[in-house]
């Protein structure tokens, strides 16, 4: 049930991206191009999504179990640190270069777009690079772990 619900959520998410125009990189860049002929559509995508999402998150706020009985694993961190801001800035540069963020990258891959697949492959390499650096950092802060591995 949990896995099926996960598939359904991903599927509906993908349909929403297609309807909204978020899966069209040219449209995303039209939104990010404030100095050119600006297409404000994506601000409304955000507004529509937040309007619907906010109710559900408010409903879940005090609950410890989901409607399927699974534990609620919503993050509680509130600290704004350098890692959050720098990481998001780097993400934004990549987003601005191609007009593609992670959700649309998967939708584009599903259309069989060669360009979408190249972006997705590079993004996965980026994910793996992050894990590699994180592992190195953990090993450096814990020498015992480094010796054992």
């Amino acid at each position, binding site marked *: 049930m*949990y*896995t099926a619900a*996960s598939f359904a*959520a*991903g*599927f*509906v*998410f*993908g349909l*929403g991206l*297609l309807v*909204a125009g978020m*899966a*069209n*990189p*040219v449209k995303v*860049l*039209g939104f990010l191009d404030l100095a*050119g*002929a600006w*297409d*404000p559509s*994506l601000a409304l*995508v*955000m507004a*529509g*999504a*937040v309007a*619907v*999402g906010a109710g559900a*998150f408010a409903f879940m706020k005090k609950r410890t*179990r989901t*409607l399927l009985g*699974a534990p609620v694993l*919503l993050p509680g961190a*509130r600290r704004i640190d350098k890692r*959050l801001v*720098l*990481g*998001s800035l*780097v*993400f*934004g*540069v*990549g987003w*601005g*270069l*191609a007009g*593609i963020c*992670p*959700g649309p*990258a998967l939708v584009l891959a*599903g*259309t069989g777009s060669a*360009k979408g697949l*190249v972006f997705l492959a590079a993004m*996965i390499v980026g994910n793996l*690079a*992050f*894990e590699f650096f994180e592992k190195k950092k953990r090993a450096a802060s814990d020498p015992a772990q480094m010796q054992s591995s």
Partner: protein
Amino acid sequence: MSIAWNAFTPASALIGGAIIGAAAALFAVLNGRIAGVSGILGGLARPQAGDVSWRIAFVAGLIAAPLAWGLLAALPEIRVDANYFALAAAGLLVGVGTRYGGGCTSGHGVCGVSRLSPRSIAATLAFMAAGFATVYVVRHLIGS
């Protein structure tokens, strides 16, 4: 700034946004998680027992959406202008940046803002600012 009224699609943007919000709501209410695509996909780079199948299912759902759509109707316009070099660089930056930043447009932008999370609002402001700045540099400083 001039508004591109011919490209502006308020109805499909709002409806599509509401569908995205519904997906995030479904995922929160049933699975108790944030529908953050970068975290869901990125978590597969560090596989842990019992933590893999729901991630693959969500990713498969996203990939299946255009396939199912394509069976029933013509897909909406999708155009990628960036060349392969730019796409590879952009993919790398998105892959690394979203992991350090702990989220992307979905996790921070949709879910986090819906929850009024200060971290997510800060992240969203940061990646939007960087996106605006990058397009400005590429289109109006380099491209002009």
